[in-house]
């Protein structure tokens, strides 16, 4: 029995794998640190001198631990990279679709703002260069008329035109 379509279940399973592997990675790092710590506490040569043969039996050499750690880390990193690439591809494709769906609304808002700005600009320019500069954001209203906001200036403009 296989799933008819690899879809959301695959994504859900990828997330489960990512969480589990990250947790494993974290705990493995902790264990390795502990192991390395124990080797430092019982220096190889000293231990071997005091109890010959015991070292080989009970302890792993530091070099071996490092090599194992290195192998494990490489494996883990490559797995994580593959998973990250897959998740990125899935995520980006979803993002593309969701952006596509909302693009009309998005465009409408941008165009609306732009048109207001343009109409304000022309309105200001027709009556006064000073007000036009305020509308374009070149000058702050306070610089021209202290204690007068842009809204008040616009009201004045409308009153003038009337």
């Amino acid at each position, binding site marked *: *029995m*296989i*799933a*008819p*379509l*690899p*879809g*959301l*279940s*695959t994504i*859900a*399973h*990828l997330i*489960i*794998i990512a969480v*589990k592997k990250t947790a494993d990675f974290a705990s493995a790092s902790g264990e390795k640190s502990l192991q390395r710590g124990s080797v430092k506490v019982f220096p190889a040569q000293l231990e071997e001198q005091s109890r010959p043969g015991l070292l080989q039996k009970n302890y792993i050499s530091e070099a071996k631990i490092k090599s194992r750690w290195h192998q494990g880390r490489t494996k883990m990193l490559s797995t994580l990279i*593959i998973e990250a*690439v*897959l998740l990125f*591809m*899935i995520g*980006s*494709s*979803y993002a*593309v*679709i969701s952006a*596509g*769906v909302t693009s009309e609304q998005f465009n409408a808002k941008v165009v609306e703002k732009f048109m207001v700005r343009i109409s304000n600009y022309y309105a200001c320019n027709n009556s006064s260069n000073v007000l036009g500069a305020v509308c374009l954001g070149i000058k702050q209203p306070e610089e021209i008329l202290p204690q007068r906001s842009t809204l008040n200036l616009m009201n004045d403009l409308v009153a003038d035109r009337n």
Partner: protein
Amino acid sequence: MKISILIPCYNEELTIEKCIFSCLNQTRRADEIVVVDDSSTDNTPEILKKFEKFVKIVRTQKNTGNKSYAQEYGLNFITGDIFITTDGDTVLKSDFVETVEKDMQDPSVAAVAGYVRSLKCNWITACRALDYAIGQNIDKLAQDYINFVFVIPGAAGVFRTDVFKEKVNFDHDTLTEDLDFTYRLHKMDKKILYNRNAICYTQDPSTLKSYINQMRRWFAGGWQNLIKHFISSDKPEMALEISLIYVEGLFFSILLFVLPIINLWFSLELFLMYSVVLIGLGIFGSFKEKRADILIFLPAYVFLRYINAWIFLEQFLKEVILKQKNLVWFKPKRVEIKL
């Protein structure tokens, strides 16, 4: 630990020899191999005679018509502590027995699910290989992490004999016996492991007709098992998996056919998005299975998704809505195994 292998077969003259060789040629040899000949009408009995000294060959009185009957019959002859189920068209990797033996050392483990690889043949088997790669390296791996392996494959399953004989056994009221006994093991809270190193190679349908028939059997069996074991379970992982597979499968299968009628443009956008996901999965599958043909035949995979979705809905209608229970086993045409 005594290990047995159980192989049911019916008209497997092209594949059974290699299957038995692979079972004999293990790094840790199985203590017992039981081959159940389900009254084959081809050259299979003659081929089996060659192996009489090495394997236990038993024959049913007449063809049972369903693999689970042959397996049940063969189980009576199993004496091992654990037994491996495989198929007559399947080849076990040489370290299969050794690998699963280690897992079964833990007495709490009741069963182990192995890793199935599809033998290379044509574009259909390449698509199936991708299915297996996704299913076993992503889905089943995650299921193993949440302790709910969805199915122990019949071609690569390992079981503790006493548990299986006393509490599980083979039922014959569904078309997918492997899903059936996996559900029953879960209901008994038995521990099931998944081992990706226990590998077997199986022969999948190589013609479109065979593929459709096999999918019909699998999906019909899936719905039959869902009805049979519909679990108002208190196990959240079980509910998660079942809803993911069946509910999502149903939802997206309907969507695949209905959406283009409602909104063609949006369905094309969705298709584009799915293609990106699919390319990613194709690269992943190709890398995991070390097979370039998976990537080459990726467009065909999309085509087969439509067939899958159609059959999934068809079987939902037949098995769940109309209650037309189908128990006729389908056996795909075999070709010689080339490794």
